């Protein structure tokens, strides 16, 4: 493991030790965040899948109704029947925070002049297949909006999980080992300095004693 380019001093080592503690705490927290995000994500994805399958099936039925309607009505009259819609559907956007990911919450707001009157045409010149098509599509609206909400949440959460996973991995496999290696390197360097200065002192002491008492000549 490569070590950081630092001066091997005691002060630097204390600083690095503090950073290592922070890195370890951050790593633990990010790991917890990743696990919880993952749990919620899996739940959401499963719901998303169920809803998508349902919506796709219903939409297929709706298109079938429209095809039937276009078979019995002329294209012109079909288009003109659907041209001016009576209701305007919109969504109120809220926001929900799932483990620091801001996901949107959509609630449908629909404005129509009369409640329950969804058909933008008179019944006299249109076929009943068209009524079926429009009403089934109208019933599907809440599911479609919910699908949009969940799918967007999944998209945002998947990106956040990926980011968090990268952070966890970089802390676990790069940052923390590097800190540990650097601290070990500084500790060893300091010990080495310590030993070398001790031997030097012992040597100097020997030399001084030799000078003062001339042990070697007395033997």
């Amino acid at each position, binding site marked *: 493991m490569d070590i950081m380019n630092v001066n091997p001093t005691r002060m630097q080592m204390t600083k690095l030790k503090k950073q290592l503690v922070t890195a370890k705490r951050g790593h633990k927290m990010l790991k917890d965040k990743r696990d919880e995000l993952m749990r919620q994500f899996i739940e959401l994805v499963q719901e998303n*899948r169920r809803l998508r399958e349902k919506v*796709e099936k219903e939409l297929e039925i709706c298109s079938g109704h*429209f095809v039937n309607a276009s078979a019995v009505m002329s294209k012109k009259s079909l288009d003109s029947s659907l041209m001016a819609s009576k209701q*305007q559907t919109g969504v109120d956007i809220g926001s929900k925070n799932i483990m620091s990911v801001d996901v949107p919450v959509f609630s449908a707001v629909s404005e129509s002049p009369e409640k329950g009157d969804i058909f933008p045409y008179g019944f006299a010149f249109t076929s009943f297949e068209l009524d079926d098509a429009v009403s089934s599509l109208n019933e599907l609206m809440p599911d479609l909006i919910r699908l949009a909400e969940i*799918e*967007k949440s999944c998209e945002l959460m998947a*990106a956040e999980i990926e980011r968090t996973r990268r952070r966890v991995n970089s802390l676990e496999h790069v940052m923390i080992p590097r800190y540990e290696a650097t601290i070990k390197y500084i500790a060893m360097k300091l010990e080495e300095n310590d030993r070398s200065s001790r031997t030097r002192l012992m040597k100097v002491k020997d030399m001084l004693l030799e000078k003062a008492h001339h042990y070697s000549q007395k033997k």
Partner: protein
Amino acid sequence: MAKSIAIIGDGESVKGFGAVGMDMFICDDPLSSPQLLKQITENDYYAIIYMTEEVFEASAREREKHAEKPVPAIIPIPGVRGNTGVGIRRLSRFVEQAVGSDILFKN
């Protein structure tokens, strides 16, 4: 804050959605869809944009710009030509992105 819902797709697929109150944008040529998507996302008027699968596939690069934002949600739906599985494939890509490998959809 209320925003509207838009749908982009070929004329056949989207005409019904106009009747239930969505704003329709007819795009019969998938190649022109990125331009259209850019136009309708410019002023942040729409919260949800549904796209039929062909159009959805064709405008991948333009969609990327909105991937990180909470709105608009750009959602693929099958058109009259049937379901090509774009939606489920997209979900499985999310799982792959998050988990590292697709553990839910590979059966």
